């Protein structure tokens, strides 16, 4: 981002606030072990004598049904949810970029097949398909099960399989118009190789569009992860994620309604902030837009 674009982004009130919130969330997630150190307990060990405690000095947000500290679980959950959100959004963007470029470059039959595939994925409700994919047994594909890191990768892959469509369409549209520009045609006429053409001429002019679409995807991805985890198909307990914390909280909604507030609020704030940041980024990267308008 150029310094002028950065200036426009920061002049966009909601954009600056959103960026600050996201930064604060990332820092809080990184500081989770420190907070655990200060409070003197960890978010994984059950403490059955202190179940469903109200907020107190040692448990700022109270405890869950196994006596684990809610604030710490929220912070460790942030690590999981933010990691998945970012990784799956980047993976979706990478797939979308590749497919969009392929469609624009080759055209014809390949373009038709790829874009009809995108149409089909958009037209279908994603959730039932996500559930089917999440229920697939990794062992049947020759992968080990029961590895916590695999759990994360699995979710990222599943979400990316559905998440690429938007970036692919944007990439294809932008690439097609760039390839028709004089500078691209001049490069083709001068005999530039395909990788050089795509890398030096198409990619830089695509970057703004793709950056915006990726930022907006982060919010959707965090929502998708939370839904899957809420349904018990995503991140598996005892690893906390905002989605699976809510699943626990719903069962105890009559006994401890507050436990259901915090994880949902965390998801909501994160998604709102990424959506605002995406809008602000779109305005900032579009030189024709007036500063500070959404």
């Amino acid at each position, binding site marked *: 981002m150029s310094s002028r674009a950065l200036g426009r982004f920061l002049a966009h009130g909601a954009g600056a606030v959103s960026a600050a919130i996201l930064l604060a969330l990332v820092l809080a997630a990184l500081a989770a072990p420190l907070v655990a150190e200060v409070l003197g307990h960890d978010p994984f060990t059950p403490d059955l004598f202190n179940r469903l405690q109200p907020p107190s000095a040692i448990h700022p947000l109270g405890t869950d049904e196994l006596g684990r500290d809610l604030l710490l679980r929220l912070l460790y959950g942030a690590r999981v949810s933010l990691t998945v959100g970012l990784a799956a959004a980047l993976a979706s963007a990478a797939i979308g970029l590749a497919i969009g470029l392929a469609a624009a470059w080759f055209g014809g039959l390949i373009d038709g097949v790829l874009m009809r595939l995108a149409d089909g994925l958009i037209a279908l*409700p994603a*959730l039932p*398909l996500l559930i*089917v994919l999440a229920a697939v047994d990794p062992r049947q594909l020759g992968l080990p099960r029961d590895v916590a890191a695999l759990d994360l990768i699995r979710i990222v892959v599943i979400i990316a399989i559905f998440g690429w469509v938007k970036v692919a369409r944007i990439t294809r549209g932008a690439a097609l118009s760039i390839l028709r520009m004089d500078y691209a045609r001049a490069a083709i006429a001068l005999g530039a190789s395909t990788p050089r053409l795509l890398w030096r001429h198409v990619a830089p002019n695509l970057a703004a569009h793709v950056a915006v679409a990726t930022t907006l995807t982060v919010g959707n991805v965090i929502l998708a992860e939370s839904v899957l985890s809420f349904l018990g198909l995503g991140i598996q307990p005892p690893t906390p994620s905002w989605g699976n914390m809510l699943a626990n909280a719903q069962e105890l909604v009559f006994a401890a309604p507050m436990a*259901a507030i915090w994880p949902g609020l965390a998801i909501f704030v994160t998604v709102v902030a990424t959506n605002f940041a995406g809008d602000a980024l779109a305005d900032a990267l579009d030189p024709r837009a007036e500063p500070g308008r959404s």
Partner: protein
Amino acid sequence: MLKLIGQRLVQGAVTIALLSFAAYALIGLMPGDPIDLAIAGDPRLSAEDAARLRALYGLDQPLIGRYLAWAAGALQGRFGFSRLFAAPAHEVLGNALLNSLALLLPTTILSALIGVGLGILAARRPRGALDYTVNAIAFAGISMPSFWLGILLIILFAVTLGWLPAGGPPDRPGLAAWVTHLALPGLTLTVLGLASYARQTRAAMIDALRSLYIRTARAKGAPERRVILNHALPNASIPIITVAGLDFATLVSGALIVEAVFAWPGMGKLIYDAILGNDYNLALLALMLTALVTLVANLLADLAQLAIDPRIRA
């Protein structure tokens, strides 16, 4: 336009066919096939019996052969037997589909009416107080995890106030029980659904209100009400309907989650139970039916545009 509808029908059929194959293959990758389950259920089952059963069910055939056999049956209306419910899969589905539609149809209509209304109000004075409020509601609607909104409504209306049940199917016959049990899931889904209607309507109406025919209508002295409802809205409705058709899939996904939160016995819960319970036939049929409902809704959106806009009829 007829050509377009024809294309859509072909595209829909291809989508359904591809989806059914993908789903069939993926479901085969889930842990435990029916024979594994039979072995788990009866330890005396010998290896030969298992092999014989496998051959009987056709599970020793390659994937493509099994899929074609299933597809041939499905095309003739034989969808197989549901393992979980011990009944033909299509009989189990009937009720769930009705329950889902009972949730989905009223909320779709409500969210369209409210969303379009809010969008019109916002567009009348862009950047006014009302516009900002509507924008905030719409933005919250698209950023809100649907299940969290559901839980919040449960906390408010079922836990704190005790006015409405926290979930489940109607516990007694009669309209009142249906309405009270549908109120919270319906409200959740309406709030989520109206967001995109409101955003789209606002954008389309602002565009329409800027055009020359609106200036003409105002110059002729048409009352504001007539300008908005008879001149601007019909023109704005085309992009609104396009997005409504595209967003229907999102709404169906939303309905499935909301059903899970409120333990509403619809398609969402059925798909979830069927997939986790290794009920292949039921899961496949439910997936196909959900996809079909969505594609039909998209087609209806196309037809509605055809009815409204004489330009594309030509």
